[in-house]
């Protein structure tokens, strides 16, 4: 299947924004797939981390609607192994932040089971609030 890509001012602006927020330069990505191979959460993801990097480079904003950006738990496995020294976890964080800064939360505490909540160490709540709510 051939996928048409469109590169225009808007897509370039999106890529630039992600680069600025993450501090990474996604155009340096070689698409070698080491991040994908290292990712422990890969089974839960809808697109691979290397696809995420590619979509950002192409300025394709559909990357924002993927499950991948939220499933990344910032374990830094990809960071440790990237041959180009890139940090895909920072790119995922930048994408999450773009959503969260529009006040679109991924987690809603009111949906949680109140009895279940009591069991967690506080750090779970603190971390989830910081990563998944704006």
């Amino acid at each position, binding site marked *: 299947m051939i996928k048409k890509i469109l590169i225009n001012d808007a897509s370039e602006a999106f890529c630039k924004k992600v680069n*600025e*927020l*993450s*501090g990474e330069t996604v155009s340096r990505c070689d698409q070698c797939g080491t991040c994908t191979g290292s990712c*422990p*959460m890969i*089974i*839960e993801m809808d697109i691979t981390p290397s696809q995420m990097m590619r979509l950002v480079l192409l300025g394709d904003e559909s990357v924002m609607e993927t499950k991948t950006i939220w*499933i990344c*738990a*910032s*374990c*830094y*496995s990809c*960071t*440790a192994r990237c041959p180009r020294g890139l*940090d895909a*976890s*920072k790119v995922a*964080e*930048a994408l999450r*932040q773009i959503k969260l800064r529009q006040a679109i939360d*991924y*987690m809603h505490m009111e949906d*949680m089971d109140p009895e279940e909540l009591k*069991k*967690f*160490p*506080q*750090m*779970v*709540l*603190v*971390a*989830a609030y*910081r*990563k*998944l709510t704006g």
Partner: protein
Amino acid sequence: MKRIPYYPGCSLQTKAKHFETSAMAVAEALDYELVTLPRWNCCGAVHSLTTDDLMHHVAPVTTLLRSKEFSAENHLDDSRLVVLCAMCLNVLKRTNKRVQELLEDRTKINDFMYLENSKYDGSTIVIHFLELLREIGWETLSQKVKHPLSNLAVSPYYGCLLLRPKEVGIDNPEAPTIQEDLLKSLDAKVIENPLKNRCCGSYHTLVDKDVVAELGYDILINAQKAGAEIITTSCPLCAFNLDQRQENILKKHPDFTKIPVVYFTELMMIAFDLPLEKAGLDMHYVDPRPLLLKKEMLHE
């Protein structure tokens, strides 16, 4: 007794208090007093990764500043800050690095914290308790062992944040040995788990426990296949995900057999033959006591 400042972190005085009490007991046996900072706040658990977000770094910087002030005022023997929790270690060290390197960020954060008594200069050194033990020396540790763990097959689990990213990790990010070295000094049978530095699923345990159960299953089953009878960890969240989530693992994989997950400090207390009231062996979902009794490491 050498006094060194200690930062507990949010969970270490509630859900993971046995990690703190056991670490303090072990430290005492090694002639160290972990002095809890009198005024501390939660570090935020996860390091904020975006370039422009300074607000989330205020919490760790406040803690680093308080530690610096506290050790100076009280003339502690060692001014470094000891932490037990892997997440705290990661957040404090990474933020510290950021404010050391980026003067502009440091100034902004300091200006924002104008109610504080002094400015933070980036001088606090953060170390993990395991690093302190490594410094004391495995040789010294083995001399303290009264009750060798020789017939206990222990598999250490590291998780992510003790090791990665490598500029703040306490050991080789791909092939760490610090826990192995420690366990060897306690004369334990060390079992290598190929997934010892695989992520446990972290905070996803809140929103998607099945994902975390699946990750935990992989990690635990690999340890068990290699012959492990018990797992050690150094992070309250890893401990929760590997221990508590075995309930969910069993639902998905009925053939799974439970395996106890404890903090390395609890095993140290047993090896040093310290009074076990503070070890918190009763605070686990999978009770390690039957195994330890079978191995004659506990008295009835």
